[in-house]
């Protein structure tokens, strides 16, 4: 069965880009555009992996990380942060909250595919 990825991202163009990139290698992608929707979607359908932006409406990415990683029902789902925030502090804060990986925008499709493979091998 195809791996199901939840993409949490609020920029329409980035959504198109990332979705195209994931579709191309056969991942099943669900998209939500704010942090609250992300939390609901995770509990509803338990994705195999989450790609998470940090600056999100309603509930921000750090909060989403905190909630999901401190809940036993969801803390085993790998979360990869995809963010334009490139400062070391943000990276560290995400890691402290339990993010499994952190990829700075922009990235190349190959880099995303290589990273995803690590979690699906």
């Amino acid at each position, binding site marked *: 069965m195809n791996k199901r990825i939840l993409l949490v991202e609020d*920029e329409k*163009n*980035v959504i*198109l*880009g*990332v979705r*195209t*990139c994931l579709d*191309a290698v056969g991942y099943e992608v669900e998209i939500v555009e704010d942090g609250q929707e992300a939390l609901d979607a995770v509990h509803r359908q338990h994705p195999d992996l989450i790609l998470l932006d940090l600056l999100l409406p309603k509930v921000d990415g750090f909060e989403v990380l905190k909630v999901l990683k401190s809940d036993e029902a969801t803390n085993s789902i790998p979360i990869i942060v995809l963010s*334009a*925030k*490139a*400062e070391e502090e943000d990276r560290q804060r995400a890691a402290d909250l339990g993010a499994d990986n952190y990829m*700075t*925008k*922009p*990235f*190349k*499709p*190959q880099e995303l595919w290589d990273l995803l493979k690590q979690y699906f091998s």
Partner: protein
Amino acid sequence: MNRRKIIDQFYNSEGLDRKAGVILNKLPAPVNLDTIADNLADPVFIVDLKKNVVWLNKKAEDFFDAGFKQAGGKPIADLTSIKKIDELINDVFEKKTSLKCSYEEASIKVKRLDERFFFKIAINPVFHQGELWGALVQMTDVTRFHEMEKIKTDFVSIVSHEFRTPLTTIIVGVEMLKEGMLGDLTPRGKEVLEAIGSDCERLNRLIDNLMELSRIESGTIYVEAEPVDVTDLVQEAVRPLKLQAERQGIELITDLPPEVPPVAADFNKSVWVLTNLIGNAMRYTDPGGTITVRVRQRGKKLFFSVEDTGCGIPKEHQEKIFRKYVQVSGPVRKGAGGVGLGLAIAKDIVMAHGGEIWVDSEVGKGTVFTFTFPVYKNKEAVTLPGTDQDEEVDL
């Protein structure tokens, strides 16, 4: 007539004794030295050899909320809550020369109520009959300057963030189109996409470098020298570029001596320097070429070099390339462009470690960039120029 003679003549004509400094009597009647001292914009203290306050001006009384009665005889460190000030004064007493802390070297952060202030400090020794007697401590408020620096750093950070998001869409799209994953392209279409792709990378590098530069210049990072394992350092620098080198058809070789002592370096910063040099070499080296990362020890220094078989740098450009915003023209590979920030930053970082960086190159043959790091001795910390050693105190 020289300056001294003019001054002497002035004193004589006024009937004043220059040595006694009677010229002060010439101040207009309502003004005396106290008036001047009390109207200075900066807090000023005079301390004795025990570093106890023997005099302070109005600004100092106001700022540190201490009238002369409370302040007189009190240690200046207690009064100002700046512990570091003792150290600075001791230094002046020992050397008997003035200490003019520039803002960069030591700005002292003082928290009062909800406000934060930054001061630079000047300390001058005071002598009495040829003997060291005390010191004059002057604090200059540089809070505004600090705020401007912060605004600049924040601005670069926001601009960088705003650039990265749209670049994501562009780069992902271009790469997928290039790989033919979204349908066929004409040869010309492919060529145009290649150009867009390499210009995107150029923008991306520029943003990375601008951020790095702004961080270094605003002094929010400092180089903390720790013992760094050289093998780790080289591997960490080479690892992210290995795959890319392979794809470009460039051989990336590391050449380390079997035994090599640790260097005194900041791990992340030194990796950044090496990665940057290798990345540069890759941009200027054709497929089939070789890049060698070499480490050698000579005395108390380790020499790191990155050697490529690329197009080389003409002699007249070799000195300029370490300056900011310089890019060498001439036989440069198509699409290899980039603003010359990387090497300027690399130089800042290497110099902050007490090392040197230089280039040897011959057009058509290749280029070798070499930098040195000191071998780790014992605990030592190196501070980047432009770094604050802030001490924060609450009042």
